[in-house]
């Protein structure tokens, strides 16, 4: 059986545009995995989770990809030496940022996976029907037990009546 995406992606066979295909793939995945908070950021009225969980999750979704640094060099107006100093500082900044950004990229990729999992778990918990079904089933068991009990009383009464007659 084909996965959903096979039918979801549209393209013109005579003029394939891979950027358009990749855009559709990314949209499909964003919808499926929820890179952004897929649920309402307000906790559902019947949420099983504490409101704080949603607040924390909201913050995490806003911050998970903020790892890169930007270069900020304060201007200098010292003649001659200032320019050389500024050039040296910008080179040094570029070098440091090269290594910092590599680490940040790895961290952001990790964060993205974690956030997707957390979003999925929270959404899963609040849309999970299992507790409601358990409650329904418990109620039905209770009713059936009562009916069974009533039926058992009747049976005992009938049986004792038969014994007396014999």
């Amino acid at each position, binding site marked *: 059986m084909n996965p959903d*995406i*096979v039918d979801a992606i549209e393209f013109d066979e005579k003029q*394939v545009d891979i950027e358009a295909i*990749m855009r559709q*793939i990314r949209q*499909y*995945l964003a919808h499926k995995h929820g890179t952004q908070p897929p649920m309402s950021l307000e906790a559902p009225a019947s949420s099983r989770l504490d409101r704080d969980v949603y607040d924390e999750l909201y913050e995490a979704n806003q911050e998970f990809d903020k790892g890169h640094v930007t270069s900020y060099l304060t201007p200098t107006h010292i003649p001659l030496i200032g320019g050389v100093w500024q050039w040296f500082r910008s080179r040094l900044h570029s070098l440091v940022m*090269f290594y910092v950004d590599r680490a940040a990229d790895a961290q952001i990729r990790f964060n993205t996976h974690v956030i997707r999992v957390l979003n999925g778990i929270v959404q899963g918990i609040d849309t999970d029907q299992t507790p409601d079904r358990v409650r329904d089933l418990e109620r039905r068991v209770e009713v059936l037990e009562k009916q069974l009990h009533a039926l058992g009383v009747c049976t005992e009464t009938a049986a004792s009546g038969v014994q007396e007659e014999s």
Partner: protein
Amino acid sequence: MKIAFVIPWYGANIGGGAEAEARRTAEHLHRVGLPVEVLTTCVRDFSSDWGQNHHRAGESVENDVLVRRFPVRRRNRDAFDAVNSKLMHGQPITSAEEEIYVRENVCSPALSQYIAEHRDQYRFCFIPYMFGTTFWGIAACSGEALLIPCLHDEAYARLSVFRHMFAQVRRLILHVPAELALARALYDPPDESLVLLGEGVDTDFVADGPAFREKYGVYGPFILYAGRKDHGKNVEQLIDFYRRYRARRSSVCELVLIGGGPLPSSIGAGERIRDLGFVPQQDKYDAYAAATLLCHPSLQESFSLVLMEAWVARTPSLVHGDCAVTREHCMRSNGGLYFTNYAEFEACLDLLLNRPSLRAALGQNGHRYVLKHYHWDIITDRYKGLFAED
């Protein structure tokens, strides 16, 4: 004036992108009548000891091209390896260590001397950028060098010794716009020195898919990886992603790997991963034709001949989106898709394996792209134009 390609090692059976480019370009330029020679060392190849002279020094003719080999000097391999290890692991190195890197690299003083003494008789094309033959050779030809850097974003490219070396080059010959953009970002060379020339691709080979299937017993759909299986080619990720894909899908699609080097991890029975190792060139071409798609996950490419050859055989490709060069090829040609994480890999594979019409369209687009930009006639004309200008 003669043209000399300068490369650390040379020979018909030597692997490596730059090595193959130098050999094939020299042979094709010779065929169109340009006076081409190759200047190289006596070292056997990349994987051998760079301080050991394997070939005899002197002249030989290989495939009609005159090859001059020069002896290398002894080197401190331990010192070089210590610095190189730091670079490979992304650690910063000092200026003194940069000097060790170039001093203890493959080095032939006789070759440098020959270049210095004959610089009025040749146009020297150095390839690739990171070896001692290039570093010392460029220094010997006083600002007249042409450099085919085969550049990609790696620690070596950021060494200040190479920044100085790039500043001495008269012409930088680049394969694709992404490589040119990287050269600009790293070295800020003058615009007039930049030449976007490309690389020649053999487009007239005949690829027989059924012959490959018969010979190697691969009968179902398969993903092909072609190339060395080393860390830089990112094969570990391909195998990891393929395993995850197989665990989630009931697909019977196999992963077939061809090329030298050991697999990065052991493969269990029933995993449907087959490593055929190094195969003859015709079998490689046949594999392209037989494959459902080519997956090339490498992050460090300056051209990617493998991608071009697969497109010549009209096979669609799947590349890593973090490799600027292969992603750019796919975008310019509309001949392949790209992924940056597992979810995208899975989605692209789902599409490519289940939409034959998409595969056919991508393969055809790739084929057209190679013929239009990298056919040997086009590349040799560009070289002729370049040498005529100079």
